[in-house]
């Protein structure tokens, strides 16, 4: 099977996608909870008006309270209860339990559509598993009510609606919304992945830039000079504020982070724990260099601001498979692309044919190439390798 993603950062991308999803799910949980809270009063009032036993009304109230409490706990104590999806499943089951009970208690055609309302509330979660659960629960509840309690749908002076037709309506409703949810959730997850991926690509772009800058200027970033200046600055700052130099030890630690093992450093600096070291790594320049990445991005801040027009227009995603291009353009674009990967460039060394074949089949690259051309490439890959062997070998000579 083709790999989903190539590269060391795959787990980081997945982690980031989960984080975005989790953050969004928390907000959605809050909205579902508010809607449920708003529904308590009208529902208990209707139950009271149709003379449902008081004890039953209390049970309804308690079930509502239970669901809301669960959701609130997962929302507020997300650090203690990280699996917010659990509250989502409980809410889904609870909402359908309440809906079916309502239909059976009120026994009127008017209340039947509360099932549609339940479907709408649950779909706020925008989650694939819950969407499947939602569709199944709606269908099962609908079939159960229509088949077991057909009298509910009798309306005076009208033709009796046949159970079959109600089920057909229900099926179309579920089918349309299920496909809609499927498409939407898939696009959403793809988008989350794209957001995470583009952040990774940003690191790679900056990395390529730094490498080339080094090659161009012939000198490396002077790490020692940075730390020396930092020492001098912190000394002067401490003196100016009139406090002890709390920076000195940290800068010393920064200098040692590249050579020493973590355990050694923790022994040497007992006031620091693992989390402190992790945080300090963001300032280290020889290995981690994150602060340089941050500063380089920050330097571009004025140029990366978006105009309103840019936010509203849908731009074609860069690819070698643009819809409006002729086949010959796509063929030449792919041929140039493959040949470029096989040749040494100023900013990146050539890739082996094997590496290209593996990467091109990954999910994030495959769709950037025309299907037919990709098929031809994969079927005749040895021929492609042969066609570029001369330029691939030229790096050995250079």
């Amino acid at each position, binding site marked *: 099977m083709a790999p989903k993603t190539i590269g060391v950062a795959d787990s980081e991308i997945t982690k*980031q996608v989960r984080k975005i999803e989790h953050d969004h799910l928390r*907000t959605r949980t809050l909205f579902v909870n508010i809607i449920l809270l708003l529904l308590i009063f009208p529902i208990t009032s*209707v139950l009271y008006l*149709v003379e449902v036993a008081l004890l039953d009304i209390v049970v309804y109230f308690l079930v509502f309270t239970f669901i809301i409490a669960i959701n609130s706990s997962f929302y507020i104590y997300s650090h203690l209860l990280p699996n917010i999806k659990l509250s989502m499943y409980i809410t889904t089951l609870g909402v359908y339990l309440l809906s079916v009970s309502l239909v059976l208690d009120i026994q009127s*055609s*008017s209340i039947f*559509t509360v099932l549609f309302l339940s479907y709408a509330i649950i779909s706020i979660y925008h989650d694939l598993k819950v969407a499947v659960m939602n569709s199944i629960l709606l269908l099962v509840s609908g079939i159960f009510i229509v088949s077991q309690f057909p009298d509910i749908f009798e309306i005076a*002076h*009208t*033709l009796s609606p046949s159970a079959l037709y*109600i089920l057909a*309506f229900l099926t179309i*409703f579920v089918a*349309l919304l299920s496909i*809609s949810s499927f498409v*939407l959730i*898939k*696009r959403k997850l793809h988008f989350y992945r794209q*957001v*995470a991926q*583009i952040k*990774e*690509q*940003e*690191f*790679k772009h900056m*990395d*390529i*830039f730094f490498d080339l800058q080094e090659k161009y200027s012939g000198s490396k970033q002077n790490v020692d000079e940075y730390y020396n200046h*930092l020492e001098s600055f*912190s000394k002067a700052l401490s003196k100016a504020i009139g406090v002890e130099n709390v*920076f000195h030890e*940290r800068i010393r630690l920064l200098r040692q982070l590249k050579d020493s093992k973590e355990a050694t450093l923790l022994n040497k600096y007992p006031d620091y724990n693992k989390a402190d070291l*992790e945080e300090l*790594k*963001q300032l280290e320049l020889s*290995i981690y260099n*994150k602060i340089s990445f*941050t500063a380089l991005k*920050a330097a571009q801040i004025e140029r990366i*601001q*978006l105009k309103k027009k840019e936010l509203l227009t849908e731009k074609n*995603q*860069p690819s*070698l498979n643009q819809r409006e291009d002729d*086949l010959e353009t796509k*063929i030449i674009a792919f*041929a140039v*692309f493959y*040949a*470029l990967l096989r*040749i040494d*460039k*100023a900013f990146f060394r050539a890739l082996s044919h094997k590496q290209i074949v593996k990467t091109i089949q990954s999910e994030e690259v495959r*769709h*950037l190439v025309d299907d037919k051309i990709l098929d031809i490439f994969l079927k005749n890959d040895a*021929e492609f390798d042969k*066609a570029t062997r*001369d*330029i691939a070998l030229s790096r050995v000579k250079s």
Partner: protein
Amino acid sequence: MKRLIEKVRSSEFLTLNEALKVKVSLVMIFLLIFGMMTVPISFFEDFALTIKIVVPLVFVALFSLTFLMLILDKSRLAMHFSIYTFLGLTVYYVGGSGQLYGYLLLFITLTVIIFYQDITTYILYGGVLTAYGLYYIQTDENLISTITDTIPQLGPIIYQSILIGFFVVYLIHFILTESMNEKLNEEYLKTQKANDIFRSYTLRYTSELEERDQITPIYERADFQESVRRISLLINAEMDKKIENLEEIIEYYFFLHKQNITSILEKNNASPTAIKYAEQFNNYLINKNNDLNTVLFEFIGLHKEGLKIKIKRYNQHLDEMFSNKTNRILGLAMIYKFLTTEITQFDKWGRVNKILSHQEVKNLLQSKLFRDFISYEDMNFFLQNEKLFKEHL
């Protein structure tokens, strides 16, 4: 049908227009099934013969129009026509004697509108439909006297409340999704723009390096051109429909690298074929920041390590990166040092050669846009100790 299912399965890779086209096609299938299921029933309804004939005809006309729009690649218009067809069916059934069908059809039509996932369409058509539904429930006597309701007026109130609830809940759903996506989209576009800038720096450095070290640019190398020619011919040989003059087109592609594309496009005497290829190849020239280089950088990026940090990897604001003030000050000092020491911009001659001066960095730190990286507190700290920053870093 198989292609349609395949498209739904890989819908995440479709553009908005392509996704809409798939949605309209699906709605049309549902519409066909639904029409076949329900239109024949209309003959048993209590309508005049003219209406009984007109309704199926209008249905067929609207359906055909939707289909036509879809073929003409007018997906948005096709979407509107498919909604009109459902709206027409709903109004028709609501007027018939099977009111429960009519009522359920209100939900089905709302569902179709929801299916398109367009907030304006939903508010417009969905709002009108919901209002119509409320009016219909209010005025229909048959719905008021439901058999099992203890209080006769309660039935219509429940009908109306659920319809409003359904509309409002989906509206919330839309607004929530839109606002979440908007924020992410902004972040995505900004990063895309930043990558674009870094790519243009790299390409510029590459051409400067080639110039300085007298290296032949890749697109001028005969061995490279020969490889591209061989690969292209290889692909062409495997295609069902062969391109006749491919070698000529390849030659033109390499020729374009040294030309000013804009002037070719503006030339009055240039042939339409030359203009067409110049337009298309502009996106794939090796020495331009275009789709080819974007895909190339993405590809080689997958073989680079990037950043080694794992904890707080994507956080770029000093407040998020560091938990204490001491580290934040060190971070701020290092950012200042980097900006005043390293090349980070194009200079006025378009070379990647500009190092920011102290005043420029000060302006940058004071800019509102810089709050994406440092807080007001950090900016004030810098201003208070500006002299120390300038002298020691």
